[in-house]
Structure formats: C-alpha cells, structure tokens
C-alpha cells in the first residue's frame, strides 16, 4: 500500500527499451518477475531442507505436501479471481463448507453418480458466489461487508440443514481418487497426486481466462479502474457478479478436492480455516489487493512457499509449540529476499537507462 508513494513510473517487464542485458548467471537470476524470484527462493529452500532432513524428500512427505498444497492453491484461486476486480470474498470458507456437505449429501444420501454430484456441487458453489455478487452489485455495499455477512449466512444455513452430522459413506472411488496419483514414480520421487493435477488444470484454465479471453481482460480492466472500464462500454456489474460466481465455483472445487482427500464430508474443515491461506497465496504471488493484477503462477508458487516452509520445519522438528514463530519469521525472510531482489532489479534498470 505504500507503493502509492512511489511516484516513479513502474518498471515494465521485458521492456523493449532494455538494451542488450548482460547474460551472466547472476543477472539471469536477478532479472525477471516476482514469480521467477519466488521460484528461485523455493528451489533454494528445497535444497536446504532436503540436505538438512532426509525425510523431507521422502515419498511420503512429498506426496502429502503436494496433495495439501493442491487444495491451498485452489482456495487461493478462489480468492485471486475476486482480488482481480479489487474486491474480496470472505466467504470462500463458508462456501467451501456448504459444498463439502452438499457433495456428501448428493453422493451418499441421494446416491447420485460421482460426475453428477461434482457438477451439482460446483453449481451450488457458483450459485452461492452469484448470490454474493448479486447482493454486492444491487446494494452497492462493498464486497468485504457483504461476504462477511454472507459467510455467516452460508455456514449458519449449513448447520441448520445438516446439524453437523458428518457423512462418511461416500463412494469408494471418490476417496480412491483423492489418494491416486498420475504417472510413474521415479526413484524417490513419487508419482504426481491426482489432486495436484486437478489444481494445475484449474490453474491452466484460469491462466487462459486471464491471458487469452475477453472475460479475463474485462475482469482486469474492472479491477484496475472500474470507472474507465465502464466508460469504455464494459459491463462492470456483470463482470463482478461473474467473478463472485467463479470464486464460489472454485471454492466448491477446492471443497470437492478436500472431500476426496479425506474420503468423507464433514463440517469442521474449511470455514474460517481457509480465510487467511486464501489471501496468503495470491498476495505473496504478486496479485494486487487493489485489483487489476493477478498471477496464476504466483498463486501456485505462493501456496507452495507456505507449505514448503511449514513442512520443512515439521520435518526438521523445529519448534513444536514454537513452530508458528519460525513459520512467520521464515515467511517474512523469504518475502524480504524477493523484495530485495526486485528492488535491485529496478535499480539496475534505472542505472542502465
């Protein structure tokens, strides 16, 4: 937020004015985007953790890391698409809980086929998100307040209807999918968990949406400057309703992944637990809270960074009760390093201009 003070023009990535950059290794590492910086930090962390704690690269740990990060990524996406318009969705977790229970209801109580249940759950998520968007556009109340209240409405409604009774008689195939993996295991590297593949596929879809579609461009235009977008004939209200519906559907997708992973539907997951992670991944990854800038790759890397640090600390047996302290410190350090790198790049560019 302090960036509003920097009156300097922002550096444009890969500017055509860049005269023959030096092709040394350091310059290659130091140039480029936030996402590239995060990637380097991630690689360094992985090397360090793998060397310090052999357990870190064990099949078991990697497998679990990838599966839990897959859910975090999709939760991050659910927040990211709303952040793109400069709004927020505090009800991602509540929609997630509703979707978890609804999917269980469709599969176990109604006995619907899995694909139908998945479609139904995604539709419910989209519907709840649509309600958010509709209320925001119609009342003009900002998204923070509307989704704060609707989070309470949604999870309250879920409690009334389910009385929090868990459903653990889901079809076996559904749970099996949560455990399954794609591709062969190579050496100590495990096969890629199906859930991670799903997260990547969703990421690819969003990447295409923002990079190669009209709708994605409209979302970014609305986020960067809603007034200019409206005055250019872009349907601002419809765009906002759409991102909230999309956010709801993504929250439902994350909920389905979680349900598959746990092989059961219960209300104690998601909810408030998703709130901070949903912001953490996109914002670390370079998505602006003020709207107009998103990074799908950054969100994936952001979620990976948080999970990597936590997993590394656990494997190293650092902290126990003190673990959150180290997690916060490491996170801050990682972001500082990336920030320092970006500042260095900006200085270099200015020097060469």
């Amino acid at each position, binding site marked *: 937020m302090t960036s509003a003070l920097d*009156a*300097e*023009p*922002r*550096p*444009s990535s*890969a*500017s*055509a*004015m*860049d005269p023959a950059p030096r092709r040394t290794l350091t310059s290659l590492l130091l140039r480029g985007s936030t996402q590239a910086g995060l990637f380097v930090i991630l690689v360094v962390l992985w090397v360090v953790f793998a060397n310090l704690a052999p357990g870190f690269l064990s099949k078991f740990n990697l497998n679990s890391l990838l599966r839990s990060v897959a859910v975090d990524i999709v939760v991050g996406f659910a927040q990211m698409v709303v952040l793109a318009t400069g709004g927020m969705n505090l009800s991602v977790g509540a929609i997630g809980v509703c979707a978890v229970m609804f999917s269980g209801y469709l599969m176990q109580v109604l006995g619907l086929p899995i694909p139908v249940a998945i479609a139904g759950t995604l539709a419910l998520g989209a519907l709840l998100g649509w309600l958010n968007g509709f209320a925001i556009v119609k009342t003009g109340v900002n998204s923070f307040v509307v989704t704060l209240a609707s989070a309470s409405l949604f999870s309250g409604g879920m409690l009334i209807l389910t009385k929090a009774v868990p459903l653990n008689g889901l079809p076996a195939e559904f749970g099996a999918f949560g455990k399954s993996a794609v591709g062969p295991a190579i050496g100590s590297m495990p096969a890629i968990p199906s859930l991670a593949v799903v997260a990547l596929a969703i990421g690819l879809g969003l990447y*295409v949406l923002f*990079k*190669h*579609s*009209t*709708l994605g*461009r*409209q979302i*970014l*235009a609305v986020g*960067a*400057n809603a*007034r*200019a*977008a*409206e*005055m*250019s*004939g*872009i*349907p601002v209200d419809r765009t906002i309703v759409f991102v909230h519906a999309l956010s709801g559907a993504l929250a439902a997708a994350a909920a389905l992944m979680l349900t598959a992973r746990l092989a059961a539907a219960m209300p104690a997951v998601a909810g408030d637990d998703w709130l901070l992670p949903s912001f953490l991944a996109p914002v670390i990854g370079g998505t602006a809270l003020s709207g*107009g*800038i998103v990074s799908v790759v950054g969100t994936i890397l952001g979620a990976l960074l948080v999970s990597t640090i936590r997993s590394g600390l656990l494997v190293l047996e650092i902290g126990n009760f003190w673990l959150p302290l180290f997690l916060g410190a490491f996170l801050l350090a990682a972001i500082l390093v990336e920030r320092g790198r970006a500042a260095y790049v*900006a200085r270099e*560019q*200015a*020097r060469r*201009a």
Partner: protein
Amino acid sequence: MALTVDKASKSFPGVRALKDASLELRSGEVHALMGENGAGKSTLIKIITGVHRPDGGRLLLDGQDVLFASPRDAIRLGISAVHQERNLIPRFSVAENILLENLPRRTGLVDYARANAEAKKYLEMIGLVVDTRTEVRHLSVAQMQMVEIAKALSHEAKVLLLDEPTASLTGEEADALFALVQRLKAQGAAILFVSHKLEEVLAISDRVTVLRDGETTLIGEPMANMTRGRLIEAMIGRAERIAVVRPPKAATGAVKLEASGVATAAGHRDISFTVRRGEILGLYGLVGAGRTELARALVGKDKLSGGTLSIDGKPAVIRSVEEALKRHRIGYLSEDRKYEGVVLLHPIRFNVAMTIWDRLARFLGFQTAAGERRATEPFARQLEIRTPSLEQSVGNLSGGNQQKVSLAKWLAAKVDLLIIDEPTVGIDIKTKAYIHELIGKLADDGLAILLISSELPEMVALADRILVMHEFRIVDGFDNDRSYEAMSRKVMGAIHRRSDEAVAVE
C-alpha cells in the same frame, strides 16, 4: 532568494527523464518552464521540491548546495509547489488542507478557530469564496485548484512553483490568479510558472527555460527576446504547424442523434438538439454549466428523467455505456483522463482494445495479446503514440500520449457518434494541434461529433455549429462563421443575457 539547478540528471527504470538540465530562478521574477509532455518538467519540479533526489547534478539555494530528503525539507526552506495532480485530502476541510503541515495548535491540540481564520486570509488573497469548514471533496475542480494555490501561499514561500495552475480555471479565475502572481512577484517571491498555454506564458513571464527530451534547450532567456515561433521551436525542435481551422461546411449527413426535451436528475431541463453524421456540433459553456453531466446522460451513464432520444431516426433508450457502444454505436471520450479515460496499470494495446474485445474474440471468447496488437497497432501508429512498444503500461506515458491512447480506443471502436469532452486540457501544443486535425478528419470521414470544450478558440476552429450551455440549459445556438471575434461576442452575449435574466427574475 535564488534557486539554481545545475546539470541535474534523473533516471527511472526504462526511462531517462532528465539529462544535465539547468534552471536559474531569481527572486522577484516570474520564470516560465516550458516543454512538451514528457519533456521532464514534472521531474524537474519534483527534484526542486524534494520528492525525487537527482542522480547527478547540484541544487543550490542562494549559492549554497542543498540536498532535500523529503518535501518537508523543501517546504522548510521556503520552496512550495502547486502540483498538477490533485493533492488534497478529500475528507479534510478547506482550512485543514491549506494548513496541513502547519496547523495552529493550542495546548497540543489543533485550534480550528484560528485555522479557519488563517485559511480565510489566504482564500481572500486569491479571491475564492467558500466556507473554510467545507470538506474538500464537495468542491468543484476549479475550487480545488484554488485551494491548492492558497495552500502554497500559506507556506509564505520564497520560491513558488505553479504546475499548470490554470488548467481547470475559467478565464476570470485565471485573471485573478495572474494578478496575485504579480503581487507576489512585487513582494520579492521567485515564481516558476509551468503552462501549456502560450498566451499566458507570454503575457506574465519575465524569463523562460525550455526542456526538450530531458535536456534544457533554452535557459533563462528574457521573455522580451522571445516570440511565439521561437518558443515553439525550442520546445518541439521545429516550426509550429499552422493552426488548424476547419473550413465551414453545411451539415448534410443523416441525423444520428436527436434529443428532444431531455431532462436529468442533475438539473438539465428541456435540452433539444440534433447531431448529423459528418458534423461537429460544439457544446460550449463555462466549467459547471452541465455539459459533462449531459454527455454522461446521453451515453447511458446517468438516467434521463424526461424527454426522448432518437437514434438513426428510431426512438431509443440507452441504459448503459455498454448499450450505447454496442447497440447504438455512440462513444464518450471523458475529460477525466486518469480516472475515466485510461487504465494506467495495463499496456497500451489493452487500453486501445478495450472497446473492441467483443469484436476481437474468437471461439468462446478466446483471444490473444498478438491479436490485440494487430488490431490496435494501426491506431497507435495513426495517432503517433510515442512509445517503444505497445506493451508499455499507460501509467508510464506522458499526459498527451495517455490522451492519444484514450482517443485511439474510440477510433478503434468505429462508433458513429463520438462525444469528445475537453480533449486538449493539459496537452502540449504539438499534440493539441494534432488532435484538432484528427477531429476534423473524423468528421470528414462521416463521423458525427459532439465536441465539449470551454476553450473558445478550439470551438471556433473546429465546430460547425455551436450550442451554448448555461446552468444546465441550452441557451442559444449559432452556425460557426470561423470568426473568433464575432463568435466570442455571440456566445458571451448568450451567457450574460441569461445571467441577467436570472437576476431580473429574482
């Protein structure tokens, strides 16, 4: 107090903003700083006021080297500026904005009674009549500009920098400001005056410094030696183009838009007019006459509360800007470039393509950056937007180039009727002439244009007919005979007649 900038340089990532620029400002003079948009004037001002630190060169105050860590240091040493951007706190009162860094206090708390009294003193100096307790966000743009000037005065500055202070002022207000500038000069202040309006500069400045591409091409030349032509040459590196005057033309195209008896919640009553294809219809009026509000109602941003519109001969209701664009082929180029014209975060091609995404979209709405580039490049080239690449963020462009991007967007949209609101405010001479020429050409190509401007010369040069708006009504209309004298008499006559009538009725 004398302020000297000696060979200052400043670079930003990807941009070399200043290169060995020099300036010498003496007390008791009005010194003009001129240059095209992007020539480095704002950067130079920001160095003088301590916002930026120069990469090289020296800053001297009365011969002593100085280094400002922040604007606070500059203010403390008696340097004060009225910047181009709106630099007021919207929810603070007029008095508090004026005295922000120097609020009078009693026993540690702000003494608002004294603050109001003090602020009033400065408002009186510039002849602005508003309650000092009003929140600034309730003021008009012109009033805000005056408050900014009052704020600079409150610093009792020895060096005063005015960056485009008259951009949003009416003629009378500007005259009052110039009178004040002369008074301050007489009191020994050094005044640096930045403006695009050559007439103003020639009228009130003693000396002039000119920047071109970050370098100083003239340093402190006495104004007495200058001519309009020499100034322009120093600024753009070649002689000025001949001012564009569109030949008079009778409107023969089909009627694109007909408004009859239009009324709005903003206060418009009984607005009726027609615009034909191939015609430039001017809508002249003072700031606050209700022109922009009318434009917004016409493109569906605000609701009509009465009257009807007919488009291409058929009755029409426009519910949104989207509908105006897509169904009725009407576009609106906003006067508020930064807030309504362009999306600063995004690249040029993104901005220009905004109005045509629907058309660019292929299967299921897919499209690519390459497609956008292909579609927008002709317009960027046609408008001579100065940039190395269409991927440049619009936020990195100068004001003139931003305006061109905003215009390119509407060229690309291929609308039938374009409402153009104050297209050349704060734009340098070269770009201005260019934009004038373009507007004429668009009309010749069959576009219907509704041109809103408070600059009468612009109106007289371009419009085929001129409607005069005053207090949310159209008070008169004339065919434009291209004679500035005659038109000016007619237009002002219409406005004053109306005001006199209002007085008589009361």
